[in-house]
């Protein structure tokens, strides 16, 4: 059996065992971790493949969440319809943002996504008639199908985990596909890819919309997990949180962002017993990650493994980029 199959088997076993062994609090923390792992995956799809650091992936999750809160709670549309509309609106927003950002270079992309994200945050904060402003919109709940309450922490866990794992597997396939390789090629040498006749802007644009859609799925779960939609998930704090998790875990690898999210949540849970300086902890983790381990935890483990055994194909894909 190949190492990567063993790894997948281990992950699946751990995910199945978690709700059977752990208490409700740990399961709800895992739900949160799944949601943020999706957001971090959305971030690292752009950061790892294209060298594009986005500060608006949580904005897409927020747009998705607000769609559900406004249409579901305010207008009372049924569950499957609001979910579909949420994903539709998110993809549409990603389409628009993509058009605005597709030609930008690394640092200007970072600034642009920061500005666009803040613009939506501003709207969610100030357009009180529609969004409820600071107080947000409360009361969004998942339906009960045939006696199974999707709001139940453990049922919700099964749902979130299944969807998250499915999306991770899909992205794994994507990373290995010609399209995934094209994205890496664009990051490494855009001119050459263009010279070879590849549609560089279209590929970037497609990746951006795809990442937006993944963040949209995270937003669907986010709003039901919190039971309220407020401007805070759209703020810069959340965007930086996701960025930090991805950098910490290693945004170039598939599992890096998920590992980063898990470690960051564990760290926060631990630290919160002593201090409530969350932002400082995030800032320090980000600072130390950049200075000491720019390739992230996932790739450090990877290197460790490779030194011990013979090099093999693996779940993680690395590039030769010189970026952090």
């Amino acid at each position, binding site marked *: 059996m190949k190492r990567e199959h063993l790894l997948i088997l281990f992950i699946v076993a751990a995910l199945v065992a978690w709700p059977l062994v752990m208490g409700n609090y740990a399961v709800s923390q895992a739900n949160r971790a799944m949601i943020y792992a999706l957001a971090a995956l959305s971030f690292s799809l752009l950061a790892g493949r294209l060298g594009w650091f986005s500060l608006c992936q949580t904005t897409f999750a927020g747009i998705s969440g607000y769609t559900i809160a406004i249409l579901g709670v305010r207008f009372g549309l049924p569950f499957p319809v609001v979910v579909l509309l949420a994903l539709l609106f998110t993809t549409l927003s990603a389409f628009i943002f993509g058009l605005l950002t597709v030609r930008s270079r690394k640092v200007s992309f970072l600034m642009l996504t920061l500005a666009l994200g803040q613009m939506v945050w501003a709207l969610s904060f100030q357009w009180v008639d529609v969004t409820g402003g600071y107080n947000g919109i409360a009361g969004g709940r998942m339906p009960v199908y045939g006696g199974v309450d999707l709001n139940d922490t453990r049922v919700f866990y099964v749902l979130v985990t299944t969807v998250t794992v499915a999306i991770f597997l899909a992205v794994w396939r994507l990373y290995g596909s010609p399209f995934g390789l094209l994205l890496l090629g664009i990051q490494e040498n855009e001119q050459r890819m263009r010279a070879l006749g590849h549609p560089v802007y279209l590929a970037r644009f497609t990746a951006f919309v795809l990442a937006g859609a993944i963040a949209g799925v995270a937003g669907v779960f986010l709003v039901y997990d919190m039971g309220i939609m407020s401007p805070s998930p759209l703020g810069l704090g959340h965007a930086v949180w996701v960025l930090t998790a991805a950098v910490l875990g290693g945004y170039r690898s598939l599992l890096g962002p998920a590992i980063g999210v898990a470690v960051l949540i564990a760290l926060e849970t631990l630290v919160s017993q002593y201090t409530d300086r969350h*932002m400082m902890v995030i800032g320090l983790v980000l600072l130390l990650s950049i200075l000491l381990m720019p390739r992230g935890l996932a790739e450090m483990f990877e290197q460790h493994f490779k030194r011990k055994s013979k090099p093999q194909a693996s779940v993680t894909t690395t590039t030769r980029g010189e970026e952090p």
Partner: protein
Amino acid sequence: MNTFYFLTLNGLTMAALLFIMASGLTLAFGLMRVVNLAHGAFYLLGGYFGVQVIRETGSLTLGILAGGGIALVGGLLMERFLLQRVRGMDLSEALLTIAVGLIIADALLVVYGGQPVSLPLPPELRAPVDLGVMMYPYFRVLIMGFAVLLGIALWLVMTYTRIGAAIRAGVDDRETAMSQGINVPLLFGGVFAVASFLAGVAGVVGTSYMSLTQGLDVRVLMLSLVVIIIGGMGSLKGAAVGALITGMVSSFATGYLPQFALFFLFLPMTLILVFRPQGLFGRTA
């Protein structure tokens, strides 16, 4: 009609503040392609410290210098001890400044608390003066005057001095400038120091207009970015025009469409990005 004049004057005051905030940022970016995303945190740092100094000494001038000074020290420390270690990796540099910004803002929350802080202005500076069309607070007129003087001073330095020529050369073509013997890293340290100083000064002065609160660092950073994206990054003229546009839009949107004020603030920037991505006075790369 009075509202119109009032909003115009408020827009000009805002523009003046924005120019003080953004002028340094745009020069530092133009020179080294490093966008200092801790700029808002330096604003907040300068603001809190400056106001504290004013409260304790009663001197406004001392407070403004202290606010600028502490931001300058913070900026230099960050540049020397952190940014130098990731020099050349532009994304690492940007992320590093985000991290530093978060840490400073959270530390300020610990030291100064979450209560909004405003500037203790002496009554003679708060008093309104007659501008012909209407009465307007004296201190705001002073801020506008200061921004204009700052703009002129920066323009003179950039146009007529050797340092200015070196900076312009560095902004235009970093590699060639370095090959001509210009010490760009040293120059950058200097520009970065001035940029941080101006952020700190803006923090103290701006407190008469927007009180210091948690989260203001992000708002200030956003405003500065909007200004330099509109104007074109690296351009001083761009910062001035960008500040005017942003200040006016902000003031009139707050006056007439408060629910969309923040949203409208970003509208000019978005339009610029669509039709002229390099900004009004920026050059194409």
